[in-house]
């Protein structure tokens, strides 16, 4: 066989996909040398991160926010900001997919065949030319086990499918990421409370969150993490960094920080990061201020409780702060809208080739609140934030103040797959009550205050950037307060109607929030 081995290779590939025969019946011998964990070849990673949609591992992204310099941002907290994330978890109950199961047989057979042949060709014939061992996200050497390699390559293939859709919000969640996403929603994570950014292959701390181990350890914005527990972060994605930083509460993690050219280790003890997704207070004597950081399961209750508190203190107007709120659950947005807008559609959704379907207010028994309302938004208000702001704007139930919002008009569904991985797939577009498509456009405030700021490019810019950002935030709030004062002056009657009255109670039960904890057993 030596002679015919490659006698005269044809100059062109033959027209048919020639399936190479496996070179051996034995499992491929494992490259034996165990090497220290290095990096992940998350090829789809770049696109994945650019998204912004992401829920991944609780860490996710403010993709487009950083489009200016191609950086991305993840968050190392229990559960926290989920940029542009607006999705419904739908457990695939028996039958849910059945009607369409038949379609799958014919779903892109050429793609399936090409994938399969390429997978087998790679597994059986790839000769790793580099001394660099390949690792998966979780640091397992992929060539050490053919079965693992097949799975890893398949996941990479699926990531490729997802990125070929050119939809930043459709993405693949491997079993680990999917599990972490579910845990995130349960808030049961040990972390350090730092928001990470992924910039040209560097892992940067964008922001240590207040009152977290990260803040206590005096981490600063723009600190670069060059190693985690001694593992180099070179070419690591922020997703993988997040996974390494997280762990059991009470256990330590050592970060090697590069700051202003100096390198030093920082030992931090992980703690449960309580995502403080809601905050309320009375400002200016008689204005109820509510800040919602995420549309989580508790958001509607939190807002209701705050409103009750405001009612007792006889506030005269409300400020709802949705700035930097990346979104969350659709049902939560509908619940909240029901507190502020008249009965009717909150939002319209539309599947491919489907009808526009209105999602109506839910007739909250506790009724609608009629105090003068100002809603603060900025460029990072996305998804569910935009639904709520859009509904309030279109129904003239309040005044939107700030800068134009993110512009995410797409709905994803998280679809569990047979091996405990999942895909988040864009399945619907949505439109505000007036019919506006906000995708890639965002919602323009009634009163524009401030401008979209580019992210700081260097450590030196950070202080200046923070000052400017704080000043802008303050101007926006001041504008809202002044507006409400003006409205109170004009309409005492409205102000006296109080907060929390059950004027429109109908006795119908509230629609429960969508389950974030779809029982795994329900999938097919």
């Amino acid at each position: 066989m030596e002679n015919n081995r490659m006698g005269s290779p044809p100059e062109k590939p033959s027209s048919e996909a020639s399936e190479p025969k496996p070179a051996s019946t034995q499992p491929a011998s494992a490259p034996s040398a165990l090497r220290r964990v290095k990096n992940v070849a998350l090829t789809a990673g770049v696109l994945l991160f650019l998204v912004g949609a992401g829920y991944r591992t609780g860490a996710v992204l403010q993709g487009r926010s950083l489009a200016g310099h191609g950086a991305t941002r993840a968050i190392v907290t229990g559960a926290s900001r989920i940029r542009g994330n607006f999705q419904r978890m739908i457990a695939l109950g028996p039958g849910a997919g059945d009607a369409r199961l038949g379609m799958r047989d014919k779903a892109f057979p050429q793609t399936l065949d090409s994938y399969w042949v390429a997978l087998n060709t790679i597994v059986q014939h790839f000769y790793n030319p580099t001394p660099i061992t390949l690792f998966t996200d979780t640091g397992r050497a992929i060539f050490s086990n053919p079965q693992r390699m097949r799975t890893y390559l398949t996941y990479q293939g699926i990531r490729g499918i997802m990125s070929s859709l050119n939809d930043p919000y459709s993405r693949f969640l491997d079993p680990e990421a999917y599990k972490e996403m579910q845990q995130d929603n349960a808030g049961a994570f040990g972390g350090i409370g730092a928001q990470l950014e992924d910039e040209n292959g560097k892992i940067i701390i964008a922001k240590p969150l207040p009152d977290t181990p990260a803040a206590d350890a005096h981490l600063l914005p723009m600190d670069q993490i060059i190693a985690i527990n001694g593992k180099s972060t070179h070419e690591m994605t922020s997703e993988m960094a997040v996974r390494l930083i997280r762990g059991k509460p009470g256990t330590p993690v050592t970060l090697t920080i590069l700051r202003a050219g100096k390198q030093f280790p920082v030992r931090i003890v992980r703690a449960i990061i309580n995502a403080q997704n809601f905050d309320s207070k009375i400002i200016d004597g008689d204005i109820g201020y509510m800040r919602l950081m995420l549309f989580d399961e508790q958001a509607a209750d939190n807002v209701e409780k705050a409103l009750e508190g405001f009612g007792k203190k006889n506030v005269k107007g409300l400020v709802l702060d949705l700035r930097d709120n990346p979104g969350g659950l659709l049902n939560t947005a509908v619940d909240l809208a029901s507190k502020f807008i008249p009965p009717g559609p909150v939002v319209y959704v539309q599947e491919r080739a489907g009808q526009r379907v209105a999602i109506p207010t839910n007739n909250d028994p506790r009724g609608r609140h009629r105090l003068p309302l100002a809603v603060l938004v900025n460029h990072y208000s996305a998804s569910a934030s935009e639904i709520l702001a859009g509904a309030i704007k279109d129904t003239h139930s309040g005044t939107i103040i700030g800068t134009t919002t993110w512009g995410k008009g797409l709905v994803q569904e998280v679809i569990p797959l047979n091996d405990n991985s999942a895909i988040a797939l864009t399945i619907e577009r949505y439109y505000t009550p007036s019919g506006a498509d906000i995708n890639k456009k965002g919602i323009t405030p009634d009163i524009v205050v401030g401008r979209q700021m580019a992210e700081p490019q260097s450590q030196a810019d950070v202080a200046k950037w923070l000052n400017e950002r704080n000043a802008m935030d303050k101007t926006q709030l001041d504008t809202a307060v002044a507006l409400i004062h003006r409205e109170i002056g004009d309409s005492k009657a409205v102000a006296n109607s109080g907060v929390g009255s059950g004027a429109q109670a109908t006795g119908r039960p509230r629609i429960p929030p969508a389950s974030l904890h779809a029982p795994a057993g329900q999938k097919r």
Partner: protein
Amino acid sequence: MRLFHRALYPVIGLTIFGAAFIAGLGPRSVGAQTGEPAAQDADGSDSLTLPPDVRHRLASAAPAKSPQDFGPAVTFWEVLGKVKTRYVDKITNQDKLTHGAVSSMLRALRDPYSRIITPEELKLDHEQALGHFSGAGLVLGARLSGDLVPIKMGAAAPVPPGPARRESDDADRVWQLVVVDTVPGSAASKADLQPGDIISKIDGVRIDRAPLATKTIDDLNLMLNGPEAHVSLLTIARPPDDHAIDVHLDHLGPVNEPPVTARLLPHNVAYVRIHLFTPTTGTDFAKALSPIYADHPSALALDLRDNSGGSLSAAEQVVGALAPNGLAGLLDTHAGAVTKLTAAADPQTFSFQRIVVLTNNGSASVAELAAAALHERAGAVLAGEATFGNGLVQSVFPLKNGWAYSLTTGRLRAPDGADFNEHGLAIDRPISPNLINTDSAVAAALPSLLAMGKAP
């Protein structure tokens, strides 16, 4: 910046098209693989399985070793179904999904030579394999940053098969875009680009520190060497000190690698220069050398400087013409298998008392293999500079509609087992770098090189 001296893999180093390559490697185990029976359908607990007809189709395209191997395929198939039925937009271009999946899988291998190739890029690759260049006339390659010393043949014990594994710090090693060679007469050659130059900017635009992580080598090849290329300024980092140099390119256009040339030098020395191993180089070599051989030259100077490699069978023929019926080298493949490459037993052979093979750091791939084989089998003296160090072999597999993908499937070694990949070959008689690029100086040095006699 660090020094970069490792792993140079010329684009056209060695490409073996899938069918032929695989056909030769397979027989060992075909028997055990054929006809994955549909009876193996019971793959355990998964409630979701491929329909029998789909599974049968896949099994006949690529037999799996065990039923579990179909597990990932079920997930992939499930995703395709969801995308088809649920995605918010109708998918009109199935090829896009295919290319997305395959290229993503290949990128995961972190090997710049394992990549998807567009029809346009494939055409360019084919042209270049024949020595027909356009644009800047650059032979491009990828190399991992880092240092290695050239391998001295015979000095070290044969390297065991498998990728070179070192405990050195790999974390900082990245794939970079390097110049392997320039085509004589091309814009790149006139601009004095050198083998080993690392390209850092194209027309003033910085390409990433690791450009091959974001672009394929074909993207960059098309940008610099495509028929529509319009690059005018390259910024390069030149080893050993990675000095940044701006290089202006003028008069881009088609240029061909020169054919095999031969002439008789003083002292009865036959001189043959091969710039590239194209599929016809074996016969071209014999044709060019025959007329001179009639004068009974005592020695041969085979000039493989700036030869970036090319066709393996051509190299085997050249080795065969000078040292018939023996090894031309070894080929390692995936599962630790080693294939012996034989020097072709050509009808026409040439015999010389002494042979000098001239190399420089632009001698790569099968040019290195030929030099090593002649050194070992015909006692040739290697003179000049250490070689590039590329022993990798790619196979190209077709997809539909003119697309294809390339996969690194093996590594060449010298007949004695020496691994020159990444290292390059050490030479017996160094020629000063100042002289190596001057043909007349090399010619002048030849008689004394030959007088030194055969290598031990």
